[in-house]
């Protein structure tokens, strides 16, 4: 492998890792604060990708406004969903939530099939992001992938800002470390839950929208990313956003370079990584909070 190929693979690994981070950070927050194992989280990623597919013709070249509208729509959707399906489940066992989110996957998959069908679709990148950059003398790299990485970094920084430097973030951190205490201090936990859930849905959908022009939009795309995100959350430590970031990048590198070196067995690389981390640190790399 020459240096330019290596560089391209590194960029791909970082880009994939950052995308995973967007989905996994929502998953880890929803679990860390609400205690809900959200199996339907992958469906929100899928919903985002299909949202991009349906909004793209309306917005044309205005890609950023489209992302904004998509995020707002999905946050509103998440807010309603939490109210309708989760608000009565917190007092029950984890298993009931697993069952509920499993049922939601079935419903979402079928609604998707009724609304947009089962075909594989492509979403074109806007013209101003469609080109490629030369890399060395032979290789090129698509501008859109750089944009995707940059967008994920911006969102990640915004998330960092919100969690560490706002009142809401303070409540989120407190909720992650001790839920009962937060309730005891008189913070409106119902509202906090609803906001966190809406935020998690919006993050997953945003990741789906950003991913849409790079990968095709297809049924079942949610299931794959969900499992990888579980791995990320387990490696990073449940409820830890910083851990999710480190773990996503690790998984991105292992997956990308696994495909280069061991094409056939690349699927199991990340699971071996997880097994190794668990032997070393059964609680994941980082503690709750950051």
């Amino acid at each position: 492998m020459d240096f330019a190929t290596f560089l391209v693979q590194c960029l791909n690994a970082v880009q994939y890792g950052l995308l995973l981070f967007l989905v996994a950070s929502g998953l880890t927050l929803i679990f860390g604060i609400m205690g809900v194992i959200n199996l339907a989280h992958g469906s929100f990623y899928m919903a985002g990708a299909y949202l991009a597919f349906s909004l793209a013709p309306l917005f044309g070249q205005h890609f950023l406004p489209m992302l904004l509208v998509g995020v707002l729509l999905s946050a509103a959707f998440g807010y309603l969903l939490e109210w309708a399906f989760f608000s009565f489940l917190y007092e029950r066992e984890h298993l009931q939530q697993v069952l509920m989110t499993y049922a939601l996957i079935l419903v979402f998959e079928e609604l998707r099939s009724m609304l947009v069908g089962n075909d594989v679709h492509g979403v074109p990148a806007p013209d101003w992001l469609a080109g490629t950059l030369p890399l060395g003398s032979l290789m090129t790299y698509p501008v859109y992938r750089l944009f995707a990485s940059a967008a994920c970094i911006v969102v990640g920084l915004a998330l960092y800002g919100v969690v560490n430097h706002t009142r809401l973030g303070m409540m989120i951190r407190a909720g992650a470390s001790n839920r009962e205490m937060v309730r005891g201090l008189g913070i409106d936990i119902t509202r906090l839950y609803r906001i966190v859930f809406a935020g998690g849905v919006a993050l997953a959908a945003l990741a789906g929208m950003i991913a849409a022009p790079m990968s095709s939009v297809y049924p079942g795309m949610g299931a794959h990313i969900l499992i990888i995100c579980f791995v990320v959350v387990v490696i990073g430590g449940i409820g830890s956003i910083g851990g999710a970031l480190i773990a996503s990048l690790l998984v991105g590198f292992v997956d990308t370079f696994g495909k280069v070196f061991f094409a056939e067995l690349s699927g199991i690389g990340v699971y071996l990584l997880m097994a190794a981390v668990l032997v070393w640190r059964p609680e994941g790399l980082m503690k709750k909070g950051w």
Partner: protein
Amino acid sequence: MRRWLPWIAALALAALPAVLTPYASDLVVKIVIFAVFALSLELLVGMTGLVSLGHAAFFGIGAYTTLLASPEADGGNLLLLLLAAMAAAALYALFVGALSLRTKGVYFIMVTLAFAQMAYFVFHDTKLGGGSDGIYLNVRPLLGPLDAGNKRHMYYLALAALAATYGLLSLLRRSRFGHALAGIRVNEQRMRAAGFATYRYKLAAFVLAGALAGLAGFLLAVQDGVVNPELMAWHESGAVLLMIILGGLGHLRGAVIGAAAFALLKELYATPALVGDFLAGHWQLTLGITIIAFVALLPKGLIGLLERRP
């Protein structure tokens, strides 16, 4: 009366083939196989308190072992294949259990899921088991006069497996080992303080559950004559977890009732003659909504309906 229910159910099932159409008989065999699978998970979730979301891996490994160990052209030895399937599943369960039992609660759920996915990708991405297309069984296994290719024989084979699994688990529940597992479920700390090596007990339960899931996988492979990686997909792990919660956790009969209810609901919602073409084409939607309704209205599962009101 209540005590005799399993016996009555077993007798009724044994008498059923006389009156069933071949299609209905196949459906019952399928339900019986999934009941064995659900019972094996009940040992983990209901009896030991370990929620595994990767149980389909052992089911699939049992099924794959059956086909990979079968001879090309003639029927294999049924007993040997059955033992091989259970042993292979138990072996993988030993590996997964040894690692994942180091974790607790939600971690355990996610880790078992991830290990199941690992098995899924091994069979999906490599040529070991025919890749994503799976492999076919040419001739069904035999044992003396017992021929698994014969529908009637297969029916009683599956039923015997269910009876044996049910019997084994209900004996286990009353044994010292079963009481230790129940103690671990309620308060592991206290059990450890009382001098129990809880890790070993949990690992033993995990391996036994894996072996029983392998038994179910063996039965399914012989019944269907084909296996593919989807048997180990996490949807399958979710479905079997759903069955035992649907039926009611903490009761062996809950697992059987749940397996039957799940299979029948799926069958009902996918039959155009009963629900119309439109809904039958979108059976996942009706099934999903039904499950949501169950979660909202029946926190104790179907078995909660049978319990006497206070």
